[in-house]
């Protein structure tokens, strides 16, 4: 749901909410926990092969607010509203309700598509998305590759780190004859220890997921992708930590996608998402935390993708983050991507980005805590 005007959307949402609550009283004595999270990222980009002139890039900046409350019985329920900059406009990338208890996590609404497993050491989420996410075969919009309408349920198998999840969703379809209702399904297993053990466990996280996506062309049924990956600590030193992340995506694609489709100036993004392909991305990350306070992160990410119809792309992305305050980072990144078989008008592109990010995270009225807190996981769960 991309909106041109934030004001109109907020107003409409507010009216909708107020209308829906008229039938029942809202308990005035229970303030929800309010969690505000956001990141504003501004980089000066210099793309040598394109304009040749540096420009300002604010892409991937976002602000989200979550509200939640304890329930009368077991569990916690809440809602998240999040906005994100999208090519000069504001889009709701988060608008969902959620529920969790000791064994289950559920959410429904607009949110992240469960189509990736690893966060690589990149300045922005949407850097090299063609290799790190299962693409959307029905939209060329960059953000439609990352978000959609999702209903998901994850069972926490051991009440700690092992999650078995299923989901059904709708990816945004910008083509005529778009199917209504769910057009994507998935299931997966993820091993996700609490981030509190990030530097201590050998395996930071790992998983495998299956993504089934209905093709935009009526003649084709679903195409499938398998995503597998994770990140391991090469050293478990929380002061000077080395880790390695790897993720592979194998896409069954649909028949009939040609090299020409991959180079279609208008529909290249979606056509590449529905093409039979394989992608492998690997990264090395170094984190320096003197006095156990993160001050620097350096990463090197290398990605390779090959299409059965012909053509390959390969990216090499060194990045650097230097922390100058809590949540305030100076960032720099260089991205070189090489194409073969005419996948791009040029054989390679080079992008240099230097900028500043400001991240915030604030909680108010917290009487809930976290499901995966250390005390809950190691000393008895308090609901």
């Amino acid at each position, binding site marked *: 749901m991309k909106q041109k005007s934030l004001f109109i959307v907020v107003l409409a949402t507010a009216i909708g909410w107020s209308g829906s609550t008229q039938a029942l009283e809202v308990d005035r004595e229970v303030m929800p926990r309010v969690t505000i999270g956001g990141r504003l990222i501004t980089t000066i980009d210099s793309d040598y092969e394109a304009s040749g002139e540096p420009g300002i890039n604010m892409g991937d900046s976002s602000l989200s607010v979550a509200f939640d409350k304890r329930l009368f019985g077991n569990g916690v329920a809440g809602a998240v509203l999040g906005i994100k900059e999208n090519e000069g406009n504001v889009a709701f990338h988060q608008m969902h309700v959620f529920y969790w208890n000791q064994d289950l996590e559920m959410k429904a609404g607009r949110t992240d598509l469960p189509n990736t497993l690893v966060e690589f050491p990149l300045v922005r989420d949407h850097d090299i998305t063609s290799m790190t996410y299962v693409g959307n075969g029905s939209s060329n919009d960059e953000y439609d590759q990352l978000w959609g309408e999702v209903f998901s349920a994850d069972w926490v198998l051991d009440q700690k780190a092992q999650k078995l999840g299923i989901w059904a969703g709708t990816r945004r379809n910008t083509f005529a004859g778009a199917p209504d209702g769910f057009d994507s399904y998935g299931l997966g297993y993820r091993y996700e220890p609490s981030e509190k*053990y990030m530097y201590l466990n050998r395996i930071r996280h790992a998983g495998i997921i299956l993504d089934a996506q209905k093709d935009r062309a009526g003649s084709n049924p679903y195409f499938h992708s398998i995503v597998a990956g994770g990140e391991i600590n090469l050293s478990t030193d929380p002061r000077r930590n080395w880790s390695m992340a790897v993720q592979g995506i194998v896409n069954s694609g649909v028949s009939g996608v040609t090299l020409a489709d991959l180079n279609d100036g208008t529909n290249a993004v979606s056509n590449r998402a529905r093409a039979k392909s394989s992608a492998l991305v690997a990264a090395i990350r170094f984190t320096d935390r003197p006095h*156990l306070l993160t001050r620097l992160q350096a990463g090197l990410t290398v990605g390779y993708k090959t299409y059965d119809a012909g053509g390959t792309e390969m990216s090499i992305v060194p990045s650097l983050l230097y922390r100058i305050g809590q949540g305030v980072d100076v960032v720099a990144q260089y991205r070189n991507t090489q194409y073969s078989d005419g996948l791009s008008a040029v054989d390679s592109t080079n992008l240099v980005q230097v900028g500043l990010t400001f991240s915030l995270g604030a909680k108010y009225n*917290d009487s809930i*805590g976290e499901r995966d807190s250390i*005390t809950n996981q190691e000393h008895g769960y308090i609901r």
Partner: protein
Amino acid sequence: MSDKKSFPPASVEEANEDRSVHIINSRRSFLKKAAVATGGAIAAGKAVAAKSPAVDHSAMGHEMDQYGSMMFMQDHSSHMVGGKIEPPGSPADHEVNYKEFDIDIRIVEHEILPGIKAHMFAFNGQVPGPEFHVTEGDWIKVNFTNNTEEMHTIHWHGIVLPYTMDGVPMVTQDPVHPGQTFVYRFQAKPAGTRWYHCHWGTPLHANHAMHGAFIVHKKKDPLKKRFPYKREYTLMLESWDIDMLREEMNEILRGMKEVNSLMAKGKLDYMTHGFFKNYGEFKKAVESRQYVAPYLQSRSNGLHINPNFFGINGKSYPATKRIGIKQREWIRIRLINASGKAHHMHLHGHDFWWVSQDGNDLAEPRHINTVHVEPGGTYDIMVYGDNPGYWTFHDHATTRVTNNGIYPGGMLTMLEYEDFTPTYTPSVSVDQ
């Protein structure tokens, strides 16, 4: 008495019985034998206590009979894992007859009242910790074992003892590390209502659960002449900010997992641990920005403690246990304020005698019905059973007689006569 026997709660006395250690683990005979076996080595140290096998003082550049911090040793972290620390300052085991106690610290789920639980650091898994009853002049040996991932000490509040036993981290001793046992030895003096608490991270540790009563009885109590009591009760006054407790405890444990990981590998340097050899070194580290101190505004908005539950002996009303009394009976109530807030304890239907403060008998007892109990202070009162009935005893700062802001609750209990026929019996209401 177990919880099963005391349901519904009968009296504070029963609660006290639950927590009392009363020389639970005297092992003097064994230790005497051990002392004989190692007598030569100990004798060489003369009046200095036995040295821990885990402590190699020579590595610190000190003489063998000196004792100092291990935090700044080159390989200090390898000395911090496990082991037993026996500081000097008190007589060795063979020189006096110690009454020996074992006490540990662990994390428990503690129920303050039905529906409200919190994780707490707790001595022997109890909130408050075990209640010591000893006699003035007794020699006390406490083997304190840290069974958590956090660091702790025990400060013996109001006891006059060698400074190496006072339990103040980095002032009188190193904090007791995970898995370590620290042996406190001292003489129980002076007599009176004393207490003990953790002195590491005091707002979180001591004020939230790591506290207990340390009662030093006189061989002959002169107060009994004027107030011939036979029963006595100890009431530890407490307050909990269970939301701060949860968040802070998890944040500490997260950090300590990293610290302990480095320590186990022998890679922990003292500055990473947040320790400095002296003020000059600390000042230099902060001013050079090498060390971003946690109190700086760039690191913290501050720790805001706003208690939302108040209690007595680990429970909030109506889960608090009652105080029993009979007609024409004197009882002694020892009030110990572990909460960090001032409390104004008022007893309905009676004037009582305030007889002691901070463990020391007042020159002249005072006849009052509200006693102001300052943070850290102990106040003893004598109550005479001359008005049969059910009488509330509570903090008169009424916001502390609430549970999560809802009245009544919190720091409230009841004086119950056990030998009268009531015409109205109390019930329970928690929403007024």
